[in-house]
């Protein structure tokens, strides 16, 4: 990775270099930059902070997996560090922009860091001696425990705030690396960019503006983010839950939702911030998880908006498994209980009762706000903003701003959570690359040092022990482990490296390998699943084969699970280190294989998502095979007539179909069913049967996008299908378009939400139904202003900017009445009329409406049959309710767990047309990153036959699950490394022990056992 703070090397030779500028280094910006870089295009990523990472790096854990964020984000960040096409410019902001799409000139200014980034070793002396001088922002107490924004910061270097520094000389002299530059100056650069992606994020709402919630003066009132910091292991309290006023552990905590969101009375933020319900639930669950019955957690909410994929399950877990209390009310004020630091919430229930309740601590779920500097940035860029200052986009081109060549993703587009940000980031990357030529790929191998041949050397093992902050260091005495390791045979050095995955540590390990001539490395740290590739790169950069490293999983499989038995953990850690050492001593260097990539793409599903992905790929010259099981393209969107924004969905779908059918790079195969599949990323082979005669065809392709969609739900409830006055929102859509006159004749319309969703059979929220209900309600009122429209709901989930439509509907007299799922509305046919009875929460009694039309919000269900079949054929996992399960629900929402497979649209989860378009572009973008390479590198960890001992018995030939081995002309078993999947079944079946699986050779496994058991036996 290169940082351009001092001398921007891009300057000077800018003429020929075409590149893309990404503004904002949060998660969205990082994902965008990575995707662009992976397609072989150059990208400059600027961020105003001193390290990239954005908001997510401050979180304690993320929902719904409750994983530690740092662990999941760190590999992404370091991946960006590894990418040669990315220039990261921290402390940098855009000054002005000239030119147009394809030829922008952006003037950027980098603020002084006052530290030479190349010299800083991040030793922390400056922060220790002159804490006030060191820049550090995140939550509550800016000084503790380290001034890094997070332990694996990229770049891993401090920054100085000279204004706050009184003893500059002292500071300069204190730095052992002599890295302080007291007269550092801002630098201005102009970079040429073909396109620009905006990923600047947003700010969290400043709750001190609210006098009813204590103006920020009440100590025990904190924001959600501050609460995250308190709970975070790397936060100011080292992860101890202490309330700010007295450091005591609270026993009763309340969360108040919609602080700075859905509010036009006190603050001008009418929109919903989309994520607060989930993060409040997460904080409550994590709190309950840690303290169980010692703490009480209550959430005060307006509507519980758990509309994302599987989020409803999370809500259920919070209530059922963790006993989190939910109260449907927005407290109007917080007061201090006299004589204490405790707090009193005052609120009104749905029934109209005034209540008060005391708490030790109150967490305000603050929403997002676009800060003034972003409004200014938009102005500089000439990008239009909406009334809430979010960047304006259109329904069917959701990541394009009003200005050609400038794209947007993440919070700046609208409030959204991490997976949606990632999705938009990939979509924006995809769009931004259009028309920007690829650069000839540099041969990275040339830049790496020659691999040292270590086969004949005696083992010189370097053992590096991570403390991973408290994660490992809190349980194990890492110094002692290192000392122990140092005494083991073959070990040349053993030392503690803090966060081993931080760039500082990686560089240290690299230099130790070179300086000490190490030939094997053991990392005592976290899981090889997530981090092995990183350390393998480090070895390779240090000039030794990447397979000569082994990781002892001291964290996930030791300290995290044996926290209560530190002694046993210590013994086990030593065993783990011994095992790793023995493994790596027996490891041998392996060469990787490269194979050409087939650049064709298979897209399964010809709805909006499938067509959008196909067109996006085809436009860039990839050949696309688009399979559709029906006899024509269109999918479920063909039934939607108009979006909530009023856009003509029918025309959009028709235009897509036309474009798809006419595209020279797209071959559409209708009535097509996938029947078999083999191969690997870059060289898949899928058999399909298609057409009226079910002819068979085998398609070779390098990547696969699944866009098989979902189905409209039609549960047999509320007289649906039995009475002609009862219809679904989807069908009613057509009535509004085709027979508007009929609406004028009718008086009462009743809509029931969550029909067939959020139930035992289909536990998830269908996401789209609240929007369709409000859309249709508004359309009814447009056609017949006299009509009375009732919407019976559980929670209205008009997330993000859709909240406007909800407000409008209320303003225009749509009657919203909440019902309890225990006592759902009842219906009774009475001639042409449906009598709808429901229990009104405000009046506290049952009301009857004589409905001329009963419109059910039935939402979507997974196309269980097709996803099940495809999941079997492609070996993909699914969620409990039948949607495809992505590789990582937060950080890899588009990639499926089988490499080379991507998901788009409602096959992933319910979503509206615009969201489908975004995801489809994103999936296309992800596919492009894979296909950008001309060859794929295959791991050397494959099975190898020893001819001398092979008895040609055929056992491997028969046992291989992939039919790879064969007896060659010489009479020995032969295994094509390009086809071998590396499972090792042949090796373990071979009766002559003639097959070894490289990287997992018998010697290595037996040596591990030896290491574990030698002391015991």
């Amino acid at each position, binding site marked *: 990775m290169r940082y351009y703070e001092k001398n921007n090397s891009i300057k000077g030779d800018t003429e020929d270099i075409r590149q893309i500028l990404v503004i904002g280094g949060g998660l969205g910006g990082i994902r965008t930059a990575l995707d662009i870089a992976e397609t072989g295009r150059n990208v400059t990523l600027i961020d105003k902070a001193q390290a990239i990472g954005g908001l997510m790096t401050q979180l304690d854990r993320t929902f719904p*997996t*409750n*994983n*530690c964020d740092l*662990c999941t984000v760190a590999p992404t960040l370091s991946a960006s560090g590894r990418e040669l096409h990315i220039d990261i410019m921290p402390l940098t902001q855009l000054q002005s922009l000239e030119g147009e799409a394809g030829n922008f000139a952006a003037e950027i200014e980098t603020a002084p860091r006052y530290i030479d980034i190349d010299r800083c070793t991040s030793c922390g002396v400056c922060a220790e001696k002159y804490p006030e001088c060191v820049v550090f922002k995140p939550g509550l107490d800016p000084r503790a425990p380290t001034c890094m924004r997070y332990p694996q910061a990229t770049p891993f270097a401090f920054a100085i705030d000279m204004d706050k520094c009184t003893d500059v000389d002292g500071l300069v002299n204190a730095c052992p690396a002599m890295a302080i530059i007291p007269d550092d100056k801002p630098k201005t650069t102009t970079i040429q960019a073909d396109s620009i992606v905006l990923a600047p994020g947003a700010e969290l709402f400043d709750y001190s503006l609210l006098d009813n919630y204590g103006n920020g003066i009440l100590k025990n009132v904190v924001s959600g983010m501050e609460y995250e910091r308190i709970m975070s292991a790397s936060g100011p309290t080292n992860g101890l839950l202490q309330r700010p006023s007295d450091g005591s552990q609270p026993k009763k905590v309340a969360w108040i939702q919609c602080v700075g969101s859905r509010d036009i009375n006190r603050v001008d933020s009418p929109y919903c911030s989309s994520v607060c319900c989930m993060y409040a639930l997460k904080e409550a669950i994590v709190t309950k998880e840690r303290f169980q019955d010692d703490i009480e957690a209550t959430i005060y909410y307006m509507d519980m908006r758990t509309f994302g994929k599987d989020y409803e399950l999370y809500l259920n877990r919070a209530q059922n498994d963790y006993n989190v209390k939910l109260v449907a009310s927005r407290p109007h004020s917080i007061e201090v209980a006299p004589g204490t630091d405790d707090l009193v919430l005052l609120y009104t229930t749905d029934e109209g009762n005034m209540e008060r309740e005391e708490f030790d601590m109150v967490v305000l779920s603050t929403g997002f706000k676009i800060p003034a500097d972003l409004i200014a940035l938009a102005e500089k860029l000439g990008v239009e903003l909406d009334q809430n200052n979010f960047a304006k986009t259109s329904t069917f081109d959701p990541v394009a701003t009003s200005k050609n060549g400038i794209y947007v993703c993440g919070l700046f587009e609208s409030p959204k959570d991490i997976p949606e940000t990632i999705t938009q980031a990939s979509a924006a990357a995809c769009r931004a690359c259009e028309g920007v030529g690829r650069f000839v790929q540099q041969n990275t191998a040339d830049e790496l040092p020659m691999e040292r041949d270590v086969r004949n050397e005696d083992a010189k093992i370097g053992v590096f022990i991570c403390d991973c902050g408290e994660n490992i260091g809190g349980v194990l005495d890492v110094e002692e482990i290192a000392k122990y390791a140092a005494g083991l045979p073959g070990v040349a050095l053993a030392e503690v490296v803090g966060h081993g995955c931080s760039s500082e540590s990686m560089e240290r390990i690299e230099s130790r390998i070179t300086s000490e001539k190490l030939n094997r490395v053991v990392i005592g740290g976290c*899981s*090889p*699943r997530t981090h092995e590739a990183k350390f393998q790169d480090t070895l390779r950069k240090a000039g030794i084969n990447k397979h000569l490293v082994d990781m002892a*999983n001291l*964290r*996930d*499989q*030791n300290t*995290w*699970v*044996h*926290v*209560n*038995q530190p002694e*046993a*953990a210590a*013994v*086990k850690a030593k*065993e*783990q280190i011994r*095992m790793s050492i023995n493994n790596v001593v027996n490891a041998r260097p392996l060469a990787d294989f490269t194979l050409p990539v087939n650049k064709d793409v298979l897209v399964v599903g010809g709805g909006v998502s499938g067509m959008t992905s196909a067109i996006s790929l085809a436009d860039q010259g990839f050949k696309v095979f688009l399979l559709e099981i029906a006899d024509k393209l269109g999918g479920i969107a063909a039934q939607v007539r108009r979006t909530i924004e009023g856009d003509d969905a029918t025309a959009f779908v028709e235009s897509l179909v036309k474009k798809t059918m006419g595209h020279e790079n797209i071959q559409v195969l209708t009535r097509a069913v996938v029947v078999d599949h083999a191969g690997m990323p870059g060289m898949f082979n899928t058999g399909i049967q298609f057409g009226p005669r079910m002819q068979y065809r085998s398609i070779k392709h390098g990547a696969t996008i699944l866009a098989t969609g979902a189905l409209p739900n039609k549960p047999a409830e509320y007289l649906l299908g039995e009475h002609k006055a009862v219809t679904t929102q989807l069908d009613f859509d057509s009535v509004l378009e085709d027979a508007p006159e009929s609406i004028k004749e009718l008086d009462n319309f009743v809509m029931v939400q969550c029909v067939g969703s959020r139930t035992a059979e289909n536990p998830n929220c269908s996401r789209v139904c609240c929007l369709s209900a409000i859309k249709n309600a508004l359309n009814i009122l447009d056609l017949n202003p006299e009509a009375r429209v009732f919407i019976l709901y559980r929670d209205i989930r008009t997330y993000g900017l859709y909240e406007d439509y909800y407000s409008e509907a209320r303003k225009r007299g749509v009657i919203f009445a909440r019902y309890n799922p225990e006592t759902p509305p009842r219906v009774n046919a009475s001639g042409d009329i449906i009598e709808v009875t429901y229990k009104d929460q405000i009046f506290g009694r049952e009301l009857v409406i004589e409905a001329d039309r009963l419109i059910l919000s039935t939402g979507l269900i997974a196309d269980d049959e097709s996803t099940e079949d495809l999941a079997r054929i492609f*070996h993909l*996992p699914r969620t409990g309710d039948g949607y495809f399960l992505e590789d990582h629900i937060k950080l890899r929402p588009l990639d499926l767990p089988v490499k080379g497979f991507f998901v788009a649209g409602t096959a992933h989860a319910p979503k509206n047309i615009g969201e489908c378009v975004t995801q489809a572009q994103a999936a296309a973008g992800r596919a492009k990153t894979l296909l950008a390479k001309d060859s794929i590198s295959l791991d050397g*960890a494959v099975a190898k036959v020893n001819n001398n001992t092979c008895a040609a018995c055929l056992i491997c030939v028969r*046992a291989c*699950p*992939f039919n790879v081995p064969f007896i060659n002309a010489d009479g020995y078993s032969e295994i094509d490394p390009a086809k071998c*999947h*590396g*499972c*090792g*079944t042949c*090796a*373990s*079946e071979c009766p002559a022990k003639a097959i070894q*699986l490289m990287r*997992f050779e*018998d010697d290595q*496994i*037996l040596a*591990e*056992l*030896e290491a*574990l*058991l*030698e*002391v*015991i*036996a």
Partner: protein
Amino acid sequence: MEKSNNTFEPVVVAFCCHYCAYTAADMAGSQRIAYPANVKIVRVPCSGKVDAIHLMKALEKGADGVYVAGCLEGDCHFNTGNIAASRKVTKVKILLDEIGIGSERIEMFLMSAGMGRRFAEVATEFTEKIRNLGPNPVKAAADKAVG
């Protein structure tokens, strides 16, 4: 492991496939679900890679219990490796009975990547089972000979 005279701490070796069981073990970690430190994990790409000889060697070297943990049936990342592993475990069980070590010291378990809790449960239950069985007779005899 240090042995005190009155408490027996079994040594359990768990061969875990990378894609499911090893991931489940990591999952148990990130969910902080405790299980006995007696369980030592050896990572293999697929449970099908586990050779009968690995299982035998572990016991010969003194492990008190050994298990192989692979993916759920039908879920194997490599199609059928877990089934192959089950067959091998059965074979070794028979051999162990033949030489009087006892087939119950070795077992096959199936779990998916997401089953952190199941990983911990299996680890705990198997460790308890081995604890009740007492030390591996091979090791016990060797100890006696030395002591």
